[in-house]
């Protein structure tokens, strides 16, 4: 199916079409067809003929893999075309405490549940967040920081800058050569503190222990984190200060991940109040929001049903998309195509599933995979192409 090369004018026209398609779908307005977006992950490297090791260690290989995928499958957008593990940047820091294990031979991709900060560090966060990130998080994660050659630190900076340049080039080429807008691209990001703690610096075990042992301290940190990092993002949304960029499709982004290990009372205390502020800011500004979720988001259903329609798009992982649309007709959901079907089904079966979803749920969904595409078995190329054909054929003539 490889997409034919577009002229600059054709790419600009297609970019405008696809951006409107995504924006109007999130707004729950009538559209030609449903959008079809790719939940990027290391699968793209396998598909383009590289290994995960190669992709992680060379941002140019990631760029080539993403563009190869776009040529092959003609997606309307990519969830995370530039987000891969940045361990290449950190290598000059020496061994980190992350515990990643990647083995392309056996197809293993593993990360330990590690804490990079400890409960005693929360007081430092409350005293000075910058000090916390540097002398607690970075110094614990990279022990070599205590005795390091300045040239190694400068090499980290050089790699970081190369990566940023390649990321910028990725979006520029997706837009200018393939007419593909971004999703997280140039949107504001906000997140509850506990979500960040579990995902990035305390781990699941550490965060769970902290919520039980030092709940007041966690609440204090959550409030400060919200003031320092979320409030400016929400203000930018409320004041419509986001860049007027033809590639940008949504205004605010967040994740919903930590509900998977928290009980209802903890969600009510540490998560929902912050999400509620995010939603309020988006609705107040008549803006839009993209949420990337993992696991089930059913614990949020009672709250989500009160959000006005036309503002929120949630990319699902575990929840059934039919059940989700029925429960929350005010939300647009991403997903519907499982990796089990894309990886083990036939092109006809995948096409039939896509057709059924389009017929049943158009106006309420954005077609996508239900996982970050990681392993070679997550999709057969001919199955993705079959879905693209169905989606394109469904466009109103």
């Amino acid at each position, binding site marked *: 199916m490889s997409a034919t090369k577009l002229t600059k004018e054709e790419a600009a026209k297609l970019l405008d079409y696809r951006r409107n398609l995504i924006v109007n779908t999130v707004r729950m307005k009538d559209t030609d067809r449903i959008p079809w977006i790719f939940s990027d992950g290391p699968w793209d490297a396998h598909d383009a003929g590289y290994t995960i090791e190669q992709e992680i260690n060379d941002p140019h290989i990631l760029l080539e893999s993403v563009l190869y995928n776009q040529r092959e499958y003609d997606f309307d957008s990519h969830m995370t075309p530039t987000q891969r593990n*940045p361990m290449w940047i950190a290598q000059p820091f020496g061994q980190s405490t992350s515990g990643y294990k990647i083995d392309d031979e056996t197809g293993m991709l593993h990360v330990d549940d590690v804490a990079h900060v400890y409960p005693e560090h929360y007081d430092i966060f409350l005293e000075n967040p910058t000090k916390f990130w540097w002398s607690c998080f970075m110094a614990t*994660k990279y022990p070599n920081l205590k005795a390091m050659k300045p040239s190694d630190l400068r090499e980290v900076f050089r790699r970081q800058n190369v990566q940023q340049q390649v990321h910028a080039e990725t979006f520029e080429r997706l837009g200018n050569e393939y007419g593909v807008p971004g999703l997280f691209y140039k949107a504001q990001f906000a997140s509850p503190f506990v979500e960040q703690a579990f995902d990035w610096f305390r781990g699941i075990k550490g965060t769970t222990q902290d919520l039980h042992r030092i709940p007041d301290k966690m609440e204090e940190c959550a409030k400060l984190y919200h003031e320092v990092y979320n409030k400016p993002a929400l203000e930018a949304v409320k004041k419509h200060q986001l860049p007027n960029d033809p590639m940008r499709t949504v205004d605010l982004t967040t994740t919903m991940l930590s509900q998977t290990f928290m009980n209802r009372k903890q969600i009510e205390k540490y998560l929902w109040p912050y999400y509620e502020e995010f939603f309020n800011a988006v609705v107040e500004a008549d803006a839009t929001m993209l949420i990337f979720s993992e696991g089930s988001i059913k614990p949020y259903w009672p709250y989500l049903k009160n959000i006005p329609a036309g503002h929120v798009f949630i990319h699902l992982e575990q929840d059934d998309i039919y059940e989700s649309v029925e429960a929350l007709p005010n939300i647009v959901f991403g997903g519907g195509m499982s990796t089990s079907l894309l990886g083990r089904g036939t092109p006809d079966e995948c096409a039939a599933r896509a057709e059924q979803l389009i017929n049943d749920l158009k106006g309420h969904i954005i077609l996508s995979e239900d996982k970050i595409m990681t392993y070679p078995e997550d999709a057969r190329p001919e199955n993705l192409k079959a879905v693209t054909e169905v989606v394109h054929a469904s466009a109103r003539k």
Partner: protein
Amino acid sequence: MNGGSKMTEEELVDFSTFPEGFEKAKAEIDFLDDDDEKTGYLIGLAMFLFNA
């Protein structure tokens, strides 16, 4: 005569402390001028390396 000047061993620096080590790290950023931008760059780097 074979040889030449002996390579000078680079001195190891403790970058881990705050504010001393943090200031030393900022001093190594030669592609930004503004002090606040350098602070933002280092904190942005720390957050970028969350999952590294």
